[in-house]
């Protein structure tokens, strides 16, 4: 796996990703091409809700995952950020989806679209 960017550069990129995207997922694999069941489950939830979301594949650079796990203080992936806030991994996102909390959080924080 290549290591194009440093730990610090990835920390800055993460801040940028989550600031510029309403829903951002760091996963094992690309969007709709996950290579891990937990990452697949998270994408399934957002596909089902039919909401726009972005994915970054942690396997594209070996320095990304350590920077991500330090940033969110969370040891595993996938990791989901909504409105710039760390929401959790597969378990929490699934639990929130089943309780309806996830839908509420998305609607409440959805960017206002200019007509």
């Amino acid at each position, binding site marked *: 796996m290549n290591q194009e960017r440093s730990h610090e550069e990835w920390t800055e990129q993460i801040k940028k990703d989550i600031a510029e995207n309403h829903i951002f997922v760091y996963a094992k694999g690309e969007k709709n091409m996950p290579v891990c069941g*937990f990452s697949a489950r998270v994408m399934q939830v957002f596909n089902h809700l039919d909401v726009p979301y972005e994915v970054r594949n942690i396997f594209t650079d070996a320095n990304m995952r350590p920077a991500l796990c330090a940033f969110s*203080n*969370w*040891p*595993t992936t996938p990791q989901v950020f909504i409105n710039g806030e*760390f*929401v*959790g*991994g*597969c*378990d*929490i996102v699934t*639990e*929130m989806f089943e309780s309806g909390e996830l839908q509420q959080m998305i609607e409440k924080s959805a960017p206002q679209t200019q007509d």
Partner: protein
Amino acid sequence: MEGDMDFVSPDEVKSRIEQALPGARVQVGTFSGHDHFEAVVIAPQFEGKSRVQQHQMVYQALDGLLGGAMHALALKTRVPESGSHEE
């Protein structure tokens, strides 16, 4: 040595969580292989904490295991129902 570092038993995971969260009720099992764990942790220390914070408390107790001997942990955390004294 990398080899023997890669195995941890559900009981060991359970006792680590219990030591970090005294008074917690903990169930730990494995699914699809010895390194995929599932756990339910009911602890008074979770009171007032968000789900993320509750999970982080459990992860801290398992520091160093996750991503190594524990490939995955499907975790459910809850605060004990008030007044529930089942043993």
